[in-house]
């Protein structure tokens, strides 16, 4: 199901994604996958000593969840740029909802591109990351 440039308008929303609650096991898996073994993500007493209360998610895991929403929507081929700002800590038990909106349509390097703003928030609505991404999309015909 290809998404076309000419079907999108500024203000359109991208399909939202709500993840299962993040688990401590997932933080262990993410550490092993990513190579980020900072113990504040997996070892309780270290997280407590660091003043965090308990283990916290890798910010990059949450960015990865936003990436899921992008590739669920358009796949990997169109992606040109993707950036986020980390604004709040994410903890196990929180499920993350990613939403996004088309904010700009542009032509760059002969491509038709759209810029979308994205945001990830937990079930209480607290924002975890905000950011934007750019995808190059085909025209109809």
């Amino acid at each position, binding site marked *: 199901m290809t998404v076309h440039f000419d079907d999108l308008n500024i203000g359109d929303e991208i399909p939202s994604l709500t*993840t*299962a609650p993040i688990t401590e096991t*997932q933080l262990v*898996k*993410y550490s*092993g*996958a*990513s*190579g*980020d073994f*900072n113990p504040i993500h997996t070892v309780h007493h270290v997280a407590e000593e*660091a003043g965090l209360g308990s283990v916290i998610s890798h*910010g*990059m*895991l949450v*960015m*990865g*969840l936003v*990436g*899921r929403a*992008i*590739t*669920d929507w358009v*796949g*990997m*081929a169109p*992606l*040109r*740029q*993707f*950036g*986020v*700002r*980390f604004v709040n800590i994410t903890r196990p038990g929180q499920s993350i909802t990613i939403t996004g909106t088309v904010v700009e349509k542009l032509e760059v390097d002969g491509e038709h591109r759209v810029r979308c703003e994205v945001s990830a928030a937990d079930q209480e609505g607290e924002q975890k990351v905000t950011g934007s991404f750019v995808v190059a999309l085909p025209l109809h015909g």
Partner: protein
Amino acid sequence: MALDKSFIGKSFEPFSFEVDKSKIRELAQALGDENAIFVDDEAAQAAGLPGIVASPTFPTLFKMWGEGGSTRHIEAMGGNLLRLLHGEEEYEYHAFIRPGDVITGQTTVVDIDEKKGRSSHLDITKMQTEYHNQKGELVAIARTTIVIRG
């Protein structure tokens, strides 16, 4: 303690990372991502890709496994790791990252900025890492902002 601004413009040692299917799949699984383009060559080809490709945040593996993360550089510049925050991360994508690729990265310190408030002091370090594959093609540029709370 402020970071050593003489690092601005300097590049660290190049590093490399070999991409394989199992690492691409492992990252997808850790993210709960069931998109077949990250695990199945046929499904990826049906989606118009050359085969399995790496997912959007895969370049973080180059940095963590290949370079040991940004923390090494912050430490070298005199930053206190206990007060470190990952502020921002941005990727520019120039070519697919595929199984079998050998990626070489090199990180440059773009800027070190201080922000002083009445009761706070922040050191904001911006670093950029360029990633090339074994054919010499630029595949991605990563921009990382690290904040040290003073």
